[in-house]
């Protein structure tokens, strides 16, 4: 089918980007039409982010050309790209955490004199027009991941971009927020805005996109109308092999029996986020914790790991192996065998400019620091190589910087950093957020191996199929406390969702 050149709002020809001589994308051709939703799919490391970052002016291509409305351009910064009408909503939020929502929305578009009240009112009206329930006066640092994402989206829309690139926009959204988001995409489409939509949720891509482009190992594989694809054909194109009987579709046929009670949380209180929450975690099992955003799951386990503190007065008790513990910082929790794999890997998970090996060794040192005061470079290499091999972290070497890795491989580094501490209790908070299907399978296998080895494993997730596929018992949290428990065999999606919402 030929396309009217006037309809091509954005085109990339032979796009290539090299990092240290290694191509992240190679000879990729891509066309975006006016008013279309174009899904860009591929495994982590396939080159989706690199391609879109080139469009958004975050990086410059090593070879190839970018055409906007038929004219060759070379955006050297996000500001350049924005002037060309291209905005990107990043997977990891790029908001200024110390500023409030309204200030972030109008950042870069301030007038000489700004009246804060007027800014707040304008932001309020705009957020309401998008059906986003966010207080414009709230400081961004206080917002949850979902609300931060919503502010990011709102910022792209407010800048009146003609092309908006969404990188994993729905990963942190609740089902209801997703509906708002899809409606927003529809309304943007009607206004002639073209949208590039990167997601690992293939069903979402099939649901809202008009066309799909699939990349694999930095190369273009296929572009076609969405109607020409189904889930299986997308996966096959993404990973180059059949992955039938998806791990999410396999219902558990048996659950591991509980071992001894390793962790007991009793009547925990953390501000308004956690309200009298009680739960137990047993050895040799995967305990899944499901809940919508704001259910207090993350806060509960952050208290367990010493990342945040419980209420000062009557904040409840946490018993680890029957002994009451109260951690002010994570270090003693790590020493006692508690590992917490964060949901926000970029902010809390790793040192991005350090190498894979060093990051993992830092994790190991957190536990072993009192044993040997001397740090040896040889150990760093040994630990780095060992974990890179075990978790199949794809990188040129263990010396590669974490910032250069794809989301899935970064997540594996975060996990390796925690597992190097040989913990007894491992808390995975959203372990596969922003991770491709291949890496998801690997992470799931690892979670199961840990439980089989007798570790107490907690998986906190907002993705119901993941919770159901992994957990031996499922706890459902709502409004700051666990409200229901299901065994793996009796759990149904409807039952869990009902408990989470009502």
């Amino acid at each position, binding site marked *: 089918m030929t396309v009217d050149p006037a309809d091509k709002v954005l085109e990339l020809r032979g796009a290539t980007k090299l990092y240290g001589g290694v191509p992240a994308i190679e000879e990729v051709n891509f066309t975006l039409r006016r008013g279309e939703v174009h899904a860009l799919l591929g495994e982590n490391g396939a080159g989706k982010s690199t391609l879109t970052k080139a469009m958004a002016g975050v990086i410059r291509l090593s070879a190839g050309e970018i055409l906007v409305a038929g004219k060759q351009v070379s955006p050297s910064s996000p500001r350049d790209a924005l002037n060309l009408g291209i905005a990107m909503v990043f997977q990891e939020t790029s908001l200024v955490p110390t500023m409030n929502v309204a200030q972030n929305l109008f950042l870069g578009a301030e007038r000489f004199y700004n009246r804060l009240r007027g800014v707040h009112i304008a932001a309020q009206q705009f957020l309401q027009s998008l059906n986003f329930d966010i207080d414009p006066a709230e400081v961004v640092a206080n917002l949850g991941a979902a609300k931060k994402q919503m502010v990011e989206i709102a910022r792209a829309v407010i800048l009146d971009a003609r092309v908006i690139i969404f990188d994993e926009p729905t990963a942190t959204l609740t089902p209801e927020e997703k509906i708002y988001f899809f409606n927003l995409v529809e309304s943007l489409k009607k206004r002639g805005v073209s949208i590039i939509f990167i997601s690992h949720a293939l069903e979402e891509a099939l649901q809202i996109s008009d066309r799909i482009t699939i990349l694999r190992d930095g190369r273009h594989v296929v572009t076609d109308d969405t109607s020409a694809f189904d889930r299986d054909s997308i996966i096959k194109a993404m990973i180059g092999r059949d992955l039938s009987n998806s791990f999410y579709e396999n219902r558990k046929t048996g*659950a591991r029996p*509980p*071992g*001894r*009670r390793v962790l*007991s*949380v*009793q*009547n925990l209180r953390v501000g308004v986020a956690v309200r009298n929450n*009680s*739960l*137990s975690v*047993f050895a040799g099992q995967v305990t899944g914790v499901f809940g919508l955003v704001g259910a207090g799951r993350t806060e509960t386990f952050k208290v367990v790991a010493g990342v945040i503190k419980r209420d*000062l*007065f*009557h*904040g*409840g*008790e946490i*018993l680890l192996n*029957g002994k*009451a513990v*109260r951690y002010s910082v994570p270090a003693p929790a790590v020493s006692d065998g508690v590992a917490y794999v964060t949901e926000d890997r970029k902010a809390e998970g790793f040192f991005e400019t350090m190498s894979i090996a060093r990051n993992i060794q830092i994790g190991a040192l957190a536990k072993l620091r009192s044993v040997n005061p001397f740090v040896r470079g040889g150990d760093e290499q040994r630990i780095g190589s060992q974990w890179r091999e075990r978790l199949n972290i794809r990188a040129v070497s263990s010396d590669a910087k974490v910032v250069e890795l794809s989301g899935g491989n970064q997540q594996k580094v975060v996990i390796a950093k925690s597992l190097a501490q040989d913990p007894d209790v491992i808390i995975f908070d959203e372990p596969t957020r922003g991770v491709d299907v291949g890496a998801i399978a690997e992470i799931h296998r690892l979670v199961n191996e840990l439980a089989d080895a007798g570790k107490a494993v907690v998986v906190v997730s907002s993705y119901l199929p993941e919770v159901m596929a992994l957990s031996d*018992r499922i*706890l459902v949290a709502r409004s700051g406390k*666990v409200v229901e*428990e299901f*065994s793996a*065999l009796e759990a149904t999606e409807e039952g869990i969702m009902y408990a989470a919402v009502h």
Partner: protein
Amino acid sequence: MNILARTRDRLLGRGDHAITVPVFDGALKPNQHLQTAEVVIDDLVDPNDLATDDIGLLLASGSTVVRIAANGAQSEVLRATGRVTALATIEGGLAVAIDGREVRVFGGRHDGFRVCDVAGKPLHCVNALAVRGDVLLLCDGSRNRAPDEWRHDLMELGRSGRVCEIDLSKGLAREIATGLGYAFGVFANDDEVWISESWRHRVRMSGEVGRKVLSELPGYPSRMAPAMGGGAWLTVFACRTQLVEFVLREPAYRKRMIATIEPDLWISPQIASDLHLQEPLQHARVKTLGMIKPWAPPRSYGLVIRLGVDGSPQYSLHSRVDGNHHGVVACAQLGDWLYVLSKGARRLLRLPIPQIEQELGR
């Protein structure tokens, strides 16, 4: 613990001053099996304990011991001089605690054996008996309170319970654990002796510093009975609540409550509830999202826990707050059936174990 730490804990509600209660989850996840159990006998008179012998099931009821047939028919086996507060079978005879103050053996090789004190201290509250060969194990729940005054012992933070071992063939008696927060169950598990310590919500081993078998229970444990295939059945006669935990940390309030209010109406666990109009907080209410809703903390509960050989909970049978098979103080396994004594409902219940285990996915 130094006084500063104690003061801090008291002020901040930490450590011993934390009014926290473990949750019913994992193997203790609530179900309705106990509530829906078959009722073998209703309207029992002062039921206290169960035991089994070669023939079948025995029940201590008031001052009698009766044999229970499969159809629920009762036949008197023994009439004692006082209330039978604990019961066990021993080599063709019966060991019986009478009024909590003496233990006598009727029938069998040790017929006529009687003990009223151990280690120079009189028995005061014998509420559980177990047998290991020629050795009789007895729980003397409290040195200050009689079996019916268990609520007083709880509210007085009683720590005077003990477990004694009596070698019937040698006539020797000794204490094997003292300073217990209400000893209310003893079980001989091979070479080990397990003791349930109600006010400390745990099952521990014998000895002065007995290793914990099971701790942090969400209720007050009572008697144990052997389970086929190893391990034991543990009954829990009431559940813990934050309200009661709070009252237990308020000495002045408790003192005044004990002095001025009838025990049935105290803020304390009960073996049955919803029996009296003036029960505390039965007509309380809370305001949630602008709506006033009825609310009341649970006062009684029914729970039996299946313990494995190592004491870990395998699964549990519940009669929840809205049920009435509460105040479970004894159980006994006979073949594939578990007989449960609900003192709160004054009923003897029966549950088919294989069917329950299948339903619970065990």
